[in-house]
């Protein structure tokens, strides 16, 4: 993984000093709350329902075991001994003290970590696939490009106060696992006929209140032009993006208003000034970065292991875990392993300091000391020898990290919701828990098969509800917490059907009704599915009607009159 050089270190140390002084000036009254707010946000610090929320960047989802141990230490020393991994690869602490944040950052800087631009109206942490570099269907490793963008966007001076936040995702595989269509800029690596690397450039995607999928504005951008092209996009956005209404300030609204074609014209016109200029990336710089992402020292291993096959045959629990949590690898004899953070005893994505240390240990023993954060809010050991799977499984099991449900209904994505977040309309964690409890029978879960269920506590869509096969959204109806259900969203990532937004099934439900509603949807699917059809496939074949009928059958008509769930409009 990328290791800092002397410049990265110097910049980060000065950032910590700058921020420490900002906190001091805020405490002494030299900075007003309003003046301090954007400054702390650009350093990941929100003030939330109960306490500050502190978001630590995990650049493009890569962690070393040393970094994870430091996160464990920080969560223990400055928080309540746990953190929350988010859909954007980051780690959130829910209970730190503002006064401690400079010290936390100082400690993080020791291991090349920070909270730079994890919030605020600036270019945020760049994300990519959690299988980057090991994916059998990878065209090229996206991580060097993500690192190029990380460096370029860090304190890029012109774009620190954009109309709204700005998220970039890079995918290097034929199957897009980074949900590039739901980002402000999505970059899909391609090879042209000559075998050269470039990007398909998408602009204007986003979830939130107005979900829109990104549009292609460039079919093939040679990689050398990555930074100048992104700069051109941001300059157009910074100049013309709306600032009168935060809900209409994302680039997706500008692209929509201008039309993708006109937006593209503006970008190309601006790009003409930058193309081939000093920010053009040369081979030397790409190689400097790419050197950090070379394959680890793999051993020559046989593709399959008789001992593992035998254990799978004799131990159904192990077999289940292998079926769901172990993923193919481009290196023979190796596998990627998902360390599940979806044990029903903990909120989705939460991880205790003790668990982090256990995972760090596993990474050291079995995965070259590295791991990943997935946008499904799990951890991944990327390079595990197949022969070590039983040991990894046992060790993960001992810490509640072996839930064998990756890609199943209870591997749900869930935002912090009303328990923590002051923007929430409704709680989301208890809904997740109730669903996980209802679907605790593994045989049943395996029979249901692939099913993405995503929960957000409000329209901001931090839990990606729009793109869940089943999406659950917290809404506020006359001060009460209700839940709207959408069906048919997905992030399949397959060319031509990369991502879709779910359709609302009908009037919303009370918290108590949600598990039963999900159960009914699932039963409808099971009754109607053809061989090998996933929930999503059956839904796409049949449409909304049978699901809707099943869910609302027998409900009092009064319940149907409340579809105008009031959407709260706080900022």
């Amino acid at each position, binding site marked *: 993984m990328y290791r800092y*050089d*002397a*410049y990265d270190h*110097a*910049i980060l140390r*000065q*950032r910590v000093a*700058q921020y420490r002084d*900002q906190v001091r000036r805020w405490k002494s009254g*030299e*900075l007003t709350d309003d*003046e301090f707010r*954007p*400054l702390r946000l650009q350093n990941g610090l929100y003030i939330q329902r109960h306490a500050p929320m502190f978001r630590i960047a995990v650049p493009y989802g890569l962690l070393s075991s040393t970094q994870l141990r430091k996160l464990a230490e920080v969560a223990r020393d400055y928080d309540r001994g746990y953190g929350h991994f988010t859909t954007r690869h980051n780690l959130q602490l829910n209970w730190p003290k503002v006064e401690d944040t400079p010290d936390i950052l100082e400690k993080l800087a020791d291991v090349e970590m920070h909270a730079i631009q994890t919030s605020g*109206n600036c270019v945020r942490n760049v994300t990519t696939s959690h299988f980057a570099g090991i994916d059998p269907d990878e065209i090229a490793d996206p991580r060097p490009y993500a690192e190029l963008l990380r*460096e*370029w*966007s*860090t*304190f*890029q*001076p*012109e*774009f*620190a*106060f*954009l109309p709204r936040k700005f998220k970039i995702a890079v995918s290097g595989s034929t199957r897009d696992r980074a949900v590039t269509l739901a980002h402000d800029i999505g970059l899909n690596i391609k090879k042209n006929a000559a075998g050269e690397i470039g990007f398909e450039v998408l602009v204007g995607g986003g979830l939130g209140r107005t979900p829109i999928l990104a549009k292609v504005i460039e079919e093939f951008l040679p990689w050398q032009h990555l*930074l100048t092209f992104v700069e051109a996009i941001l*300059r157009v956005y*910074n*100049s013309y993006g709306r*600032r009168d209404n935060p809900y209409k300030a994302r680039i997706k609204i500008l692209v929509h208003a201008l039309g993708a074609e006109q937006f593209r014209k503006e970008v190309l016109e601006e790009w003409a*000034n930058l193309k081939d*200029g*000093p*920010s053009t*990336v*040369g081979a*030397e*710089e790409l190689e*400097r970065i790419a*050197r950090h992402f070379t394959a680890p020292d793999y051993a020559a291993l046989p593709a399959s292991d008789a001992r593992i096959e035998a254990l799978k045959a004799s131990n159904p629990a192990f077999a289940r875990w292998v079926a769901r949590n172990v993923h193919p690898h481009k290196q023979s004899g190796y596998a990627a392993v998902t360390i599940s953070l979806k044990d029903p005893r903990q909120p989705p994505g939460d991880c205790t300091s003790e668990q982090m240390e256990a995972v760090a240990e596993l990474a050291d023993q079995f995965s070259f000391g590295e791991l990943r954060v997935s946008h499904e809010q799990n951890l991944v050991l990327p390079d595990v020898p197949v022969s070590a799977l039983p040991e990894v499984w046992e060790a993960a099991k001992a810490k509640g990290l072996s839930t064998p449900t990756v890609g199943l209904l209870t591997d749900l994505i869930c935002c912090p919701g009303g328990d923590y977040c002051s923007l929430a309309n409704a709680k989301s964690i208890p809904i997740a828990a109730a669903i996980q409890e209802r679907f605790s029978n593994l045989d049943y879960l395996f029979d249901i098969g692939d099913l993405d269920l995503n929960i957000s506590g409000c329209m901001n869509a931090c839990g990606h509800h729009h793109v869940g096969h089943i999406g659950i959204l917290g809404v506020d109806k006359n001060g009460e917490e209700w839940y709207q259900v959408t069906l048919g969203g997905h992030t399949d990532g397959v060319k031509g059907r990369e991502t879709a937004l779910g359709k609302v099934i009908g009037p919303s439900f009370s918290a108590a009704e949600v598990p039963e509603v999900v159960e009914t949807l699932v039963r409808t699917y099971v009754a109607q599915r053809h061989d090998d059809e996933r929930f999503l496939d059956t839904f796409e074949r049949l449409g909304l009607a049978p699901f809707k009928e099943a869910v609302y059958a027998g409900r009092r008509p009064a319940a149907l009159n409340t579809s105008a769930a009031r959407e709260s409009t706080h900022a």
Partner: protein
Amino acid sequence: MPDLIRRPQIIRSAPAPAIVADDFARLVLTVSADAPETSESAATVVLPSVADAPNLIVPLAVWQARRDELLARNAEGGKLGVSLAPGEEAEALAGDFAHLALIAVEFPKFVDGRGYTSATLLRRLGWSGEIRAVGDVLRDQFFLMRRCGIDAFALKEGKDLNDALKAFDDFSFTYAGAVDDPRPLFRRVHRGDASLDTGKSS
């Protein structure tokens, strides 16, 4: 009468950051939402005499509407600056550089970052004179502003000028190219070492 904003002292970043005396007055049109009929317009606002305000900054709209009068002031020994509000295009001034002593970029709220792009584009258009940040101008943005070509800072009223001077030292190195140095870090130094490069210039 229009508002005339004066800052007896401003900060300049070049040649070295310093607090300097300043005698420009910045004309701001008074706009009243309650009584629109009392609002001033670019066409009718009373311009101060050269004696009252020899050095004057006016909004772009006033410059465009009252060009001849303003040029006459220049002929009488006045100096002229034009201020760009967010949303106003830098290109609007491209043909006028010869008449201007400075261009001001307005930051009505410091979180409105359009001024960074305006300043960048002014430099690209070839403006080499002063670019002055005016409005909600705070020390925590100086470093960014300077990188975008802003070299004069009319600090927000009530903020400590001496304290603000320190902000230019926030960072010794930067990654991206910008107006101050269009080369990204990887073209300025040799990267990848555990100690700082002392070979190439920075």
